[in-house]
């Protein structure tokens, strides 16, 4: 499949957060400040790409080879959980400041539906390993893009005069909806 179509499709047209609804929890939870958003994106990107590679290999050489396709869910989530543990250990050593800033959200990357979602989609769309990696990298970029745009918007929202009932999550969601509308405009690209 055309690599460019995969890339544009993943980042803009079928943006993992705004169009496919994956990765919403960190999207709402970590997007309050731009700096944490950037850190989160890095961690998610790392896990997403590695997870896609490892799960692809496991699916091809173990699950499919032995007719164990029904163990996909267990196998994939265990891979992701292990990778997140790895990231935690590395981050603690390499950048304790970022480790502190991300706090509880770091282990929560395991439950980031975007990562498991991308891993499963790579198999469903029958990409080969190269396409899968490009797919994962593009979705990580798309995730980061949505997260950072949103963090910027939220930093501004905090300074605005929002009606009491809508303060906090409701106005964030409505803004996300408007952002999603904007992204829908990309559908003519591919």
């Amino acid at each position: 499949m055309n690599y460019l179509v995969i890339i544009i499709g993943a980042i803009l047209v079928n943006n993992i957060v705004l169009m496919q609804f994956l990765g919403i929890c960190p999207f709402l939870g970590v997007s309050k400040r731009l700096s944490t958003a950037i850190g989160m994106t890095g961690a998610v990107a790392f896990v997403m790409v590695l997870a896609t590679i490892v799960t692809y290999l496991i699916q091809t050489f173990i699950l499919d080879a032995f007719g164990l396709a029904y163990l996909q869910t267990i196998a994939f989530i265990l891979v992701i959980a292990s990778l997140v543990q790895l990231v935690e250990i590395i981050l603690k050593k390499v950048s304790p400041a970022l480790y502190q800033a991300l706090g509880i959200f770091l282990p929560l990357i395991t439950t980031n539906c975007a990562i498991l979602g991308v891993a499963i989609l790579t198999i469903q769309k029958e990409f080969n390993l190269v396409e899968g990696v490009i797919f994962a990298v593009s979705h990580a970029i798309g995730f980061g893009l949505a997260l950072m745009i949103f963090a910027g918007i939220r930093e501004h929202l905090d300074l605005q005069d929002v009606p009491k009932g809508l303060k906090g999550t409701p106005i964030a969601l409505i803004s996300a909806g408007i952002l999603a509308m904007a992204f829908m405009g990309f559908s003519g690209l591919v």
Partner: protein
Amino acid sequence: MNQWKNFSKGFIKENPVFVLLLGMCPTLGVTSSAINGLGMGLATTFVLLMSNIVVSLIKSLIPDKVRIPSFIVIIASFVTVVQLVMQAYLPSLYQSLGLFIPLIVVNCIVLGRAEAFASKNNLLTSAVDGLGIGLGFTFALVLLGGIRELLGSGKLFDITIYSENYVTLLFVLAPGAFIVLGYLIAIINRIKKD
């Protein structure tokens, strides 16, 4: 523990979607129709109930450091059961819910309840909690799905309520999900305050 209170807290006071703000991904992703919301809600309730039961039963056997991975395996197994059973007996629902069925395993609600509740409470309490939170989740999904389906396609549970000429397509699309959920949370917050 008052089991009725334990059960009913899942509906309003501790509604996983509107109050705890968990399980957002499926909430936004499968609520383009009331039926999808119902199907997903019930599937998740099953997983919640079963995993809460199993975790509560074997909680003393699991060393503390590996409890999260162990819970994840248990949850993943029940999710796979749901996948297989749905594929066999409810193929069209399975297709509509698509990717979000295996994603139940990363639904923060399920792991959250196992960790915060089932690993610390007895069997009956954990089971009732699982059931209550699961049904509260289902309630939220059906509500959101129903509103989006009605406003976006004029139908409810696939029954045409009003003509397609007056629908606002946006509601069944991505932005509609965010916007309706945002307003619902705002409304529920107001109700809770009173």
